[in-house]
Structure formats: structure tokens, C-alpha cells
């Protein structure tokens, strides 16, 4: 049986189930106890598991992420919450120099079964230091898995897998997804990390995307269907590991690809996907791979400017139409 629940509720269920299943799992972060976290993901956990396993921290990101690394190296399975992905810069040493490298650097002698949950993205006028999308940063550094679920179903199944994973996983939610709903099974399930999901099959153009942009892509696909353009939406779900086979299969099938993400364009995931496709499937493309991304400026507060910086449905629409047209110079 399925029920419709919110994205944050799905995450909460995953935490609850995994904490029940494994006494080594504990959660840690700022204001995650009594107030259940700023986005209410950990609501109710304090009452269920007590303050030892739902540990509120001082505002010390490098400290508590680093402590989670140490705890994970020595037998625990911490799930830390970074309230905003932007604060990962404060915790950067613990994430990039410690967590990411510990296993390889030690010649495989240690595991770091750590999950860093965080949320990112714009659209709420929160400004340049609270609206960034940082997945490419995490994905760039070898040693960290990067997961970005777009639906409640994916969020729950992938978070459970992330907690069971023996590697550091940065699990990136989107601030505008928490209040979205979707069907989630009553029964327990997990989803493997590293498998993309075709959220809508199509034959003309593939939109490759993840996180909230999946919802935008699906809306665009519905609209374009009325014009007779059949769009496939491929949700990557994780960037590391990247499901190369699904990317290439879809690119070969439609021969036209738009990569959409809310992060900046320069050195972004779109560039990586485009490179992969041209290396492996060049002959099968009908047109160059296009990208729809945020513009390369810090996210401004003024609503009109913020909208203009972040990718909108009409931008995606234009890119798809461009790929379908004979004019290869359109944009």
C-alpha cells in the first residue's frame, strides 16, 4: 500500500526507521531536537530517542562535522544536519580534507560511514549566503558520495541506503521540496545509490537533471507534449556514483540532451554530463548538448533578480525547443 506524504516526512521516517534498526545511528546538528530542525525533518526524534541520540550542537560546524568523522571511524554511524549547504564552507576541512580522504589515505584501513544531510537552493529571497547549490563542489572531491533526491519516495529510500553505506555521503535536500508530496510505500524499502530514474519516458529530447529541477522538467515535459514534443526526464538522483549507463542510454535514444541544474554553470555538473556524452555517444547526437543553469553570479535577494538568476521553466522550454529546431544557433 502507498500513502501520500511530504518530502520532509519521508526523510523523518527514514531516520526513525534506521535509528530503530541500528543503535549506532545517531543524529547531530543545530536546533534539531526540541524544534525538529529548521525544516522539521527531525521533528519527533528527540521524543522517540532521547537527547543522546538526537544531539543538539553548538554553532560549530567544523567541530560537529569533524566529530562525526571521528565517531564514524570508530564504530558509530552519525547523521549530521548542516542547516544550509552554504555552511559546508565553514565545515570544509572536516568534509574535504578529513571525511573524503580518510579511507584512501589510510590504505583502506578505515571506513567513514557518515551522512551529512543538508539543504540548498534559492527561490526564497534568502540571499547569496543562504541560497547556493553546491553539489559540484562535493562531487569534485573524490571520496564523497553525493545524493540529491527529488521526490519523497526517493528521499526515503535513498536516505536509508545512505545511512547503511560505509562511505561518507552528502545528502542534499532542496528547501523548496520539503512541502511537496508524493506516494511512499507503507512497507520498508531502500533504493540503491547510483541508479538514475526515468521520471518520464520520451523519445525526442532528454532532460537530464536532479533535485527540484526534476519537478520543473516534468512540468515542461507536460506542456511540450501538447506541442507534440516527447520529452524524457532522467533524474540522476546521485552524482557520485554517476549512473553513466542510464545517461548514455537516454542520450542515444533521443539524440538530444538538455542538462538542467540550479547550480552555477561554470565547472558545473552540466559540463561533466556534456563531456561524458560527447566522449561516448558523439555519433548518436542530433545536436550539441545544451545546459540550463543558474547564471554565474551570487544569488541576489531582489525577487526579480533572483528569478532571473535561477533557471525557470521557460528557460528549459526554450532550450528544448532550440534542440528540436533546425537552427542550431538558437539559445
Amino acid at each position, binding site marked *: 500500500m502507498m500513502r501520500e506524504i511530504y518530502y520532509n516526512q519521508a526523510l523523518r521516517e527514514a531516520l526513525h526507521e534506521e535509528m530503530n534498526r541500528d543503535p549506532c545511528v545517531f543524529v547531530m546538528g543545530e536546533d534539531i531536537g526540541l*524544534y525538529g530542525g529548521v525544516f522539521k525533518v527531525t521533528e519527533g526524534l528527540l521524543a522517540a530517542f532521547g537527547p543522546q541520540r538526537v544531539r543538539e550542537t*553548538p*554553532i560549530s560546524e567544523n567541530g560537529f562535522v569533524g566529530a562525526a568523522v571521528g565517531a564514524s571511524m570508530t564504530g558509530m554511524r552519525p547523521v549530521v544536519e548542516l542547516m544550509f549547504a552554504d555552511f559546508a564552507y565553514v565545515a570544509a576541512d572536516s568534509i574535504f580534507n578529513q571525511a573524503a580522504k580518510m579511507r584512501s589515505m589510510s590504505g583502506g584501513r578505515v571506513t567513514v560511514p557518515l551522512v551529512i544531510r543538508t539543504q540548498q537552493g534559492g527561490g526564497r529571497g534568502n540571499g547569496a549566503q543562504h541560497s547556493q547549490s553546491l553539489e559540484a563542489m562535493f562531487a569534485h572531491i573524490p571520496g564523497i558520495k553525493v545524493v540529491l533526491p527529488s521526490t519523497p519516495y526517493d528521499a526515503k529510500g535513498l536516505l536509508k541506503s545512505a545511512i547503511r553505506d560505509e562511505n561518507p555521503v552528502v545528502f542534499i535536500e532542496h528547501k523548496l521540496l520539503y512541502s511537496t508530496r508524493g506516494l511512499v510505500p507503507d512497507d520498508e524499502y531502500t533504493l540503491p545509490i547510483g541508479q538514475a530514474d526515468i521520471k518520464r519516458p520520451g523519445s525526442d529530447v532528454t532532460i537530464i537533471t536532479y533535485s527540484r529541477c526534476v519537478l520543473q522538467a516534468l512540468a515542461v515535459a507536460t506542456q511540450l507534449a501538447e506541442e507534440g514534443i516527447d520529452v524524457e526526464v532522467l533524474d540522476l538522483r546521485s552524482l557520485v556514483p554517476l549512473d553513466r549507463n542510464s545517461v548514455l542510454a537516454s542520450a542515444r535514444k533521443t539524440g538530444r540532451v538538455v542538462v538542467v541544474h540550479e547550480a552555477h554553470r561554470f565547472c558545473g555538473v552540466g559540463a561533466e554530463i556534456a563531456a561524458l556524452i560527447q566522449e561516448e555517444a558523439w555519433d548518436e547526437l542530433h545536436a550539441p548538448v545544451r545546459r540550463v543553469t543558474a547564471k554565474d*553570479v551570487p544569488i541576489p535577494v*531582489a525577487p526579480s533578480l533572483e528569478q532571473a538568476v535561477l533557471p525557470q521553466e521557460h528557460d528549459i522550454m526554450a532550450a528544448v525547443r532550440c534542440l528540436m529546431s533546425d537552427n542550431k544557433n538558437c539559445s
Partner: protein
Amino acid sequence: MHINTVSSEKTLDLYTRMLRIRRFEEQVGTLFGQGQLPGFVHLYVGEEAVGAGVCAALRDDDYIVSTHRGHGHVLAKGGDMNRMMAELFGKATGYCKGKGGSMHIADFSIGMLGACGIVGGGLPVAVGAGLSAWYRGTDQVSVSFFGDGAANEGSFHESLNMASAMKLPVIFVCENNQYGEFTPAIKAMNIRDIADRAAGYGIPGVIVDGTDALAMYEAAEAAVARARSGQGPTLIEAKTHRKGGHAEGEKAFLGGGEYRLPEELMAMEANDPIAKLHRIVMTSNLVASDDLEELDQQITQAVVDAVAFARSSPDPALESLYEDMWA
């Protein structure tokens, strides 16, 4: 009660600075409640004596670095209400042309180096401004405002130690309003007084009643004198209260939950910094009460004008997106 050794002119100056903040912030709270402002808004109501007291001890060319709760600091340093309000609305006429918003207001013409959305992010920047004053051979000082919560970031330790080791003209002003968001300070640290930490850096640590503008002013004056004369930094811990929530709109978020004790709310009411100074001004006959009434009306009108200015200002042009990206 404090025995007033501060000149009557300065006392009125402090009162004016505080009232400008209070009336501005009240209006901002209302506007936010009406859904007219984008983003987050953290109000300074209840903490006015800290910013006002410290900034009244500064020169125009001294520096301050602020926090996410920054409106009060800008106003205390002499910021312009119109340009602040326009920034909060995200308008082209705002201090940051609508790009920065509430958490990033800056006015370099008055030494206000910026608010900051990253807790603890401002402390090293303030150290750098002090370092720069030292290099340039001026006697400017630099003030870092930060919260009790920020005192638990690594940047606090690094900044205080560096400023002390290098004897820089920096004044660290910890606004201990007893909470970081919804977490009581006493749960986030195992000491009551953040000023105790100063000993670990070999600098003075001073505890001040942060609801007493005169006491704040005097403590700041002493720290400024020390910094200007090359003797290095001071840590001032201002014990204060924020009268509102952590951020506006927090009630809806908390879902009826309340994390503050009734006793605390009562103590806070009794310690309103503006009411306190008002009493002193009245009992010492510094001015007629009519004059204070008139001052309030002027300030209130200035806030109304600022809202009108912001409302009638244009949105930033789309072409401005790439402007100001590179120097």
C-alpha cells in the same frame, strides 16, 4: 541604577540612536508580517543599547562588522533609513542595489563593512580591518559585533587569538542575548560568561549590562581608548535580550511551541533599554518630555518616509545582474 557620568549631549545621542533603531525595526516587523519583504529578517529590538552604546564611542572613520541581526548596527553607526529600507524591499535604490538584502547591508562611507549571513563570519573580517588600520598607520579601530552562538564557532578563537597576538585595534562585542536561534546559550557552552574566555587570549574581558546604554557607552569608550593607543583588543560581553523571535515569522514555524520562560520575558520587559534611558533622561531633567515626544515623532515620520521611498523606488533592472561582479 547607573550613576550618569555621561554628558547630557551624549546621553541624548544614545537615546536618539536607540529610538531610531526601535522605530525602524518595529516597522520592518510589521512589513514582514504583511509579506512585503523577501527573505529572512532578524530584528534588533531589545538589543539597541549595545549597538548604540558602542557606536556612540566610535568615530565616523572607525569600522564595524555586523551579523545577520544587523539593522541596528547600521543605524547606530549613522546609516541612512531610506537606503536601508529600500534594500530590505530589494529595490535598486537600496544600499546594495537590492542584491544583498537584510543580512548583507553595508555602508562603507560610514565604516560599516557589512552584515553577514554566516554566523562567526564577521570576526576575522573585523580583525583584518584592524590589521589594515595598523599597516596604514591610522588610529582607527575596528569593532566586531557577534552573538553568543557565534562565540562557539572556530572563527571566534582564531580571531581573538590573532588580534591579541598581533595587538590589533579590535573590539569584540559579544551580544549575549542568551540564545542561538532556539538553543539557550547555557546548553551550547559550559560557562555562563563568555567574557571568561578573554583570559585565554590574554586580553581584558568585560561584562556589561547590555540593556544599559550608558554602561555600554562607557565600556566601549575604555576599549576604544585601549585599542587606539596600541594596547590591543578587548572582549566586551553585553548581557542582553532580544525581545522578538530569532527571525520574524518564527511563531508560525514553531507551531505554538515556546522556548522562552515567562520569568525571562518579564525580566526583559523590566529591562527595556529605551524605557530605562528614558527614565534617566526624565529624572535628571535633561530635556522636557515634550522634546522627547517630538523626537519620537520625527523618527517615526522618518521611518514612514523610508517606507514610502522604498515603495516608490524601482526594482533593479535585469541588466544589473552582471554589474558589480568584478572590479
